[in-house]
């Protein structure tokens, strides 16, 4: 972890990637007036690379399509979803068949809701079921519970007997005991108070030990900045910027995209200043930049042309006016 942080992004790129997503898009068919079928694109030209031992946060508002990303990587999208683009896991293409084989084993999910636990199974047993080393499963489960600070008798309890925080730790334990190399955490810290947030994030960070990679999906930039090495900012189904953690500083001068800057300044700790307008609807089509209608520095050029992603100051940005 610590080692990785000091390596500039341009150099980490040469390292072997754990997950690589390129030109990925996802759309759903929609029927308009009668039987006319059209497609709405909910994720467009998504790109992201995660290296072993690295935590990459995907930050976006509700309704921006970020949870569908998790489903895409695990191959648990609804049947009518259409996907395009390339996903590589450890350098090998991640096909639907391979997804089915490795999900829960090499790629593990920490779901958003604590309701994801089986209500009729004791927690110990539930966690043990995702351990591949069957002989040692009791010991491994016990160690994980201990590491997460769960009381000794937790494995004998049913989910309804746990508090919200304990249930969340059981979910994290499930990912911890698996031999997964990539962990996808989908909003694992919704509405937690500062103390519970710190605690949960510490546990999540423990997961990135042993060279595991993690995708941390959240709407809470504050939580993302506490543990992530890099932050991918998701807007209107696109990654508008991939910034390094240390870029979020001061008035946001080091940030590259106007949306990221606005997001940073909107925090109550900073300027608490809102940006006008609403996020684009799912499937809304823009001939130019997706952020143009709300952008304070947009020009006519942005209306007609789509910015491609470019490398600026060791980060990736999709804006014509990003300064290097």
């Amino acid at each position, binding site marked *: 972890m610590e080692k990785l942080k000091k390596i500039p992004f341009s150099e980490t790129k040469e390292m072997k990637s754990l997950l690589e997503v390129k030109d990925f898009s996802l759309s759903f068919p929609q029927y308009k007036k009668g039987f006319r079928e059209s497609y709405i694109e909910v994720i467009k030209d998504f790109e992201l690379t995660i290296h072993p031992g690295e935590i990459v946060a995907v*930050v*976006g*508002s*509700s*309704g921006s399509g970020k949870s569908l990303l998790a489903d895409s990587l695990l191959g648990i999208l609804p049947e009518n979803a259409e996907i395009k683009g390339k996903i590589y896991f450890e350098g090998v293409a991640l096909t639907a068949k391979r997804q089915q084989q490795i999900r829960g084993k090499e790629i593990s999910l920490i779901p958003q809701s604590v309701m994801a636990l089986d209500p009729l199974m004791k927690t110990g047993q539930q966690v043990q079921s995702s351990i591949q080393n069957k002989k040692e499963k009791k010991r491994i489960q016990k160690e994980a519970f201990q590491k997460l600070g769960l009381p000794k008798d937790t494995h004998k309890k049913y989910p309804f007997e746990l*508090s*919200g925080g304990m249930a969340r730790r059981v979910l994290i334990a499930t990912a911890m005991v698996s031999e997964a190399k990539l962990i996808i955490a989908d909003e694992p810290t*919704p*509405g*937690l*108070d*500062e*103390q*519970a947030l710190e605690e949960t994030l510490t546990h999540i960070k423990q997961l990135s030990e042993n060279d595991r990679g993690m995708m941390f999906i959240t*709407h*809470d*930039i*504050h939580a993302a900045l506490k543990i992530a090495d890099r932050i991918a900012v998701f807007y209107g189904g696109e990654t508008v910027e991939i910034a390094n953690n240390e870029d979020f500083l001061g008035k946001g001068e080091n940030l590259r995209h106007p949306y990221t800057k*606005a*997001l*940073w300044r*909107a*925090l*109550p*700790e900073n300027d*608490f*200043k*809102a*940006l*006008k307008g*609403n*996020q684009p609807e799912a499937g809304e089509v823009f001939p130019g930049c997706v952020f143009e209608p709300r952008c304070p520095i947009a020009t006519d050029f942005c209306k007609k042309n789509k910015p491609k992603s470019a490398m600026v100051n060791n980060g990736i940005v999709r804006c014509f006016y990003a300064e290097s």
Partner: protein
Amino acid sequence: MLKVNNISFGYNSEHGVFKDISLSLKPGEILGLYGKSGIGKTTFAKIIAGYLKPDTGSVVVDGETYPFKRRNPVQLIGQHPENTINPRWQMNQVLGESGVFSDEFLRELGISNEWMHRFPSQLSGGELQRFCLARALVPETKYLIADEMTTMLDAITKAQIWETVLQLIKQRQLGMLVISHEFPLLKRTCHRILDFEDLLGKN
């Protein structure tokens, strides 16, 4: 003036949630209530808004007590708007239940005309929360209780909603109680902040 006088409450007779809490909120005042999860902030909010009856003590709203024979002047907004809106109604029906709203008012809240014919599942959390605000801010409302109103929203949407709410509160001189575990947010929005644990500890 909204006055909470020595209220106590427990979900069962053995374990009380809190005892003897008092508080007062003036029109035009924005009061913050800070505290970590699970110490009874939401229960407290529900009692003030008349959803729950306290075991002892009283809530006095401009000289009157619950139950009111008219629309409740104390309106509560919670954390999960999707749970408070009928999923089988289109948004114009949702608003229609509470009264008639002027286009100007809806524009002020940032509600787009296009959203009126959608179902709740077709709107995002921030968009739904604006509808909840519209419903809560009918002319009869004198006090607004915001219980983690923007916790589930991203920073920009959060700032947007607060900008609108603070403006409306000032315009109409409403009293507002902001319940949150986010201290920076309370510092930014409130005239005065109380720690819920201090309120509990006074007994």
